[in-house]
């Protein structure tokens, strides 16, 4: 005789809720109290942010301060300082375009269709040139604007992208040197990595911005901004090198042997076999490192750059709008969130894509 086994029906949504939150009287009570607290907080927040908030600049700072809710007028009045810092007012469209350039360039290079050497080089080459010409000017009838006047979101994005762009290849070089078979190379590299990691980022930035000019000849110094970017790239690469090395250790030894047996050269083995697999292993930690690097750009304020956080500081300033700092910081937090959240989602997309061939 055959027995027919029927799976018990899946509980409906309401039934599921009842089981999870209202199984016993005590549980029901706790659930209701928690719900009340959450509703209360949500109401307070919404009330502050939307219902009692002031959105227009018409009343000026005084009317805004008197309101019970948030004073978004400060954003409407000062958003240009937040986004563009000290960049000359008439030229700020250039800074805006430069931001768009960086975002487009980054988005394009995140798309698998652009993952060939020539296309990536094209995207980054054009992007970098466009950014530089837009921001600095001095050619094509654009007014010259020195690096010391760059600021806000455009500066934050520039520092982040160049840090990664210089730091990432450097990290791969360091990781490869560290696994060299020659002990003096691997040990020296290890020493450099550990030394950089044991220093605080602020001290590195300070050294590159302020101390280095004393040690270098005039022609080698470059602008302070580029020295700071180099310092931050060095810091990034020391951490990222260890992440890449960890990824490499996860690639079985047989992979390299198989590549050798097929006659591949050292660079072919590294580029085609080892690194693609190592980067897949290292992906979650790498995305993490990118997120940290994005947020650490705010530290350049220590050597006198007005990236987005410092520009925000200047936006509410000490004058009429000084009471509205919470609103400014919430606005900046939202901008950070948009970028970092996109980065995390992109990481998740890559992980899904790369796990196709997983055993």
């Amino acid at each position, binding site marked *: 005789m055959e027995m027919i086994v029927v799976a018990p029906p899946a509980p409906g949504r309401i039934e599921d809720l009842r089981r999870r939150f209202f199984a016993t009287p005590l549980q029901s009570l706790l659930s209701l109290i928690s719900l009340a607290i959450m509703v209360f907080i949500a109401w307070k927040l919404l009330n502050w942010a939307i219902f009692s908030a002031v959105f227009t600049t018409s009343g000026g700072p005084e009317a805004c301060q008197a309101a019970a809710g948030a004073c978004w007028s400060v954003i409407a009045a000062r958003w240009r300082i937040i986004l563009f810092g000290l960049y000359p007012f008439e030229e700020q469209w250039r800074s805006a375009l430069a931001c768009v350039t960086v975002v487009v360039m980054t988005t394009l290079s995140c798309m698998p269709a652009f993952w060939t050497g020539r296309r990536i080089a094209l995207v980054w080459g054009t992007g970098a040139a466009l950014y530089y010409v837009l921001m600095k000017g001095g050619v094509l009838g654009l007014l010259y604007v020195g690096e010391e006047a760059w600021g806000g979101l455009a500066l934050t994005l520039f520092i982040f992208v160049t840090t990664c762009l210089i730091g990432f290849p450097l990290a791969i070089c360091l990781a490869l040197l560290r696994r060299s078979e020659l002990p003096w190379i691997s040990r020296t590299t290890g020493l450099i990595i550990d030394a950089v990691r044991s220093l605080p980022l602020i001290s590195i930035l300070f050294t590159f911005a302020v101390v280095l000019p004393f040690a270098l000849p005039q022609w080698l110094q470059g602008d302070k901004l580029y020295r700071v970017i180099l310092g931050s790239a060095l810091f990034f690469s020391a951490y990222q090198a260890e992440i890449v090395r960890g990824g490499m250790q996860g690639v*079985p030894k*047989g*992979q390299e*042997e*198989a*590549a*050798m*047996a*097929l*006659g*591949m*050269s050292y660079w*072919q083995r590294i580029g*085609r*076999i080892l690194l*693609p*697999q190592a980067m*897949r292993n290292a992906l979650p930690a790498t995305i993490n490192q990118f997120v940290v690097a994005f947020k650490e750009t705010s530290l350049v304020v220590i050597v006198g750059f007005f990236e987005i956080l410092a520009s925000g500081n200047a936006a509410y300033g000490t004058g009429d709008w000084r009471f509205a700092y919470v609103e400014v910081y919430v606005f900046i937090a939202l901008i950070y969130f948009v970028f970092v959240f996109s980065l995390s989602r992109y990481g998740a997309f890559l992980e899904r894509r*790369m796990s*196709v*061939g*997983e*055993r």
Partner: protein
Amino acid sequence: MNSTQSSGPAVRIENLDKYYGSFHALRKINLSVKRGERIVVCGPSGSGKSTMIRCINRLEQHNGGRITVLGTELNDDVGNIDEIRREVGMVFQHFNLFPHMTVLENCMIAPMIVRKRPRAEAEATARRYLEKVRIPEQAMKFPGQLSGGQQQRVAIARALCMQPQIMLFDEPTSALDPEMIAEVLDVMVTLAAEGMTMICVTHEMGFARRVADRVIFMEGGEIVEEAPPEEFFAVSRNERTRQFLSQVLDH
């Protein structure tokens, strides 16, 4: 230097010594393999058989003696090593397929970047060899989606796509489930019948009996016995060989 010269042995090993630290892994090995010859190497684990064939394409560096492959001596000259590796295919116990590439890409990459063949030609060659190992329909899958036996056949196809003159097999069936051993051995038998020079480290004595021209028994880093299979299995002179054979044949 012309590696494709047709005279002389395919592989000549003279007084080969190999140490791991102070451990003497290979002791004065002498072996000459003619073109088209099929050699089966067997012996207990730790006897140095894998180490010996891994010396032939320089996955292990030898410490003494001479190895000459297709007329080219293996020494520190990187050019020589690359030249030999192009002509010597290898199949590993654990397949070592590249997991981030499809089966087809696994077979195409070395011909394209090492032999600089155009993509279309490399793909045609790859498909031909996948056909030969009887898995053309798996070409677009990733290695992780295949069974062990299928993976090992892809590994054989991948090595063959370089159109090597010599094939080394390092225990190709030892990591397989019993029901998959036959499909891999079948491919190897076909290859042997076509005249490929083969050196196989294996415990598959049925395979040795069927295709080997010579069977070599190693122990303690030395070649203890060397004979054609009929002689090797029937009238082994060496006590240790007889003991080993009774262990692998009686089960």
